[in-house]
């Protein structure tokens, strides 16, 4: 442990893509470093999608196990490491929601979700949508889920996801104009 602390002081911090390259080569310390950098916001953000702490913990664990096994699949030109890890995390969460014995009862309108940080383009866009539409848009367009996965995440039938999306599309085109 002490040797590790010393190294951290003397060696320059590795960038995220450097860490992923090291993880692909089997560097356990690199996985721990990536975890310390990203796990906290991932945990908080997963909680915005799901309030069950055990499910979120499992999803977070699966995420980094997947990163360990699939680090070589990351392509730097495909986007930020954080975004790539998030796309894994939200899928692992959906996996766990699917496996849950009693799926969330379908309620009329899911709780409005917290918005992305103010000032970001996504925030501006989503804030102009009605509450019941913005969680669907966020799941499909921001998290990159399929309509089926979004249905599991939000606890609503896939058909509702699709219909809300089609209601959201003209609104989105309007705001984008």
């Amino acid at each position, binding site marked *: 442990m002490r040797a590790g602390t010393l190294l951290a002081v003397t060696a320059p911090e590795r960038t995220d893509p450097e860490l992923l390259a090291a993880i692909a080569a089997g560097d356990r310390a690199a*996985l721990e470093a990536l*975890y310390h950098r990203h796990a906290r916001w991932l*945990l908080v953000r997963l*909680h915005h999608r799901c309030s069950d702490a055990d499910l979120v*913990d499992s999803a977070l664990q699966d995420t980094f*196990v997947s990163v360990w096994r699939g680090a070589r699949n990351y392509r730097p030109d495909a986007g930020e490491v954080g975004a790539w890890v998030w796309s894994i995390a939200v899928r692992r969460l959906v996996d766990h929601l699917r496996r849950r014995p009693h799926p969330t009862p379908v309620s009329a309108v899911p709780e409005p979700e917290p918005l992305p940080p103010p000032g970001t383009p996504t925030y501006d866009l989503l804030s102009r949508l009605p509450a019941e539409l913005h969680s669907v848009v966020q799941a499909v367009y921001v998290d990159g889920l399929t309509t089926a996965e979004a249905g599991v995440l939000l606890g609503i039938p896939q058909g509702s996801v699709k219909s809300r999306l089609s209601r959201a599309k003209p609104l989105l085109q309007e705001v984008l104009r």
Partner: protein
Amino acid sequence: MNIDRIDQRLVANLDAIMGEISAPARSHFERALLSVRVPEPTARLVAATPVLRWAWFAAVGVVLLFAASAGAEQWQPGDQLAVFLALAPLVPVLGVALAYGPHADRSYEVAVAAPLSGLRLVLLRTISVVVAAAAVSLLTVVAAPTEGWLRLAWLLPSLATTTTALALATRLGVRRAATSVGIGWLVVVVAVSQVRDDATAPFGAAGQLVALAVALVAGAILAGGRRRLDRWSDA
């Protein structure tokens, strides 16, 4: 959300992640056990047993001996089967000897101090040898030169030697028990063969009944004395 709880969870989650990626891949044997719905901890116990492969080798050795002797012309077909029948019940006894005890397993003392019952551990390990030996033996016996049920005549004697070895192990310790039963079995088989002047005589109907009776008595003794396997023994 309480920030202290988040820190605790982040630490616990990191341990879970590092534990998950640190665990070496399971062996083919362990995965086979899991695929037939053996509970995960049990599969670990059976598959990771360090010394049992010697018992497997012995099982295969007995069968190879049988196969190799098949072409020997100086042997009567009955003699060959008799040798096989005499050796087959020794394989699970060897399994017992190698399953438990300070000579068989370096982590024996740790196993004794663990809540898992000694009888359960020794049975799990013995059964895995018995099943392997029986599977290999069955394959060979299909090709045995003798007709009829004599092909399977080692089944009850094997059960008798195994349970007797386990029952004696509660008194004498595993190694002494297995050695006694091994020698005792060979003495009985040779003596009965000589007296009746028939190499397969010990495996006749009377022999099978005696084997069954011995197995039942030994099983009762084992059940009564099983707690002794939870304490240390150096034999």
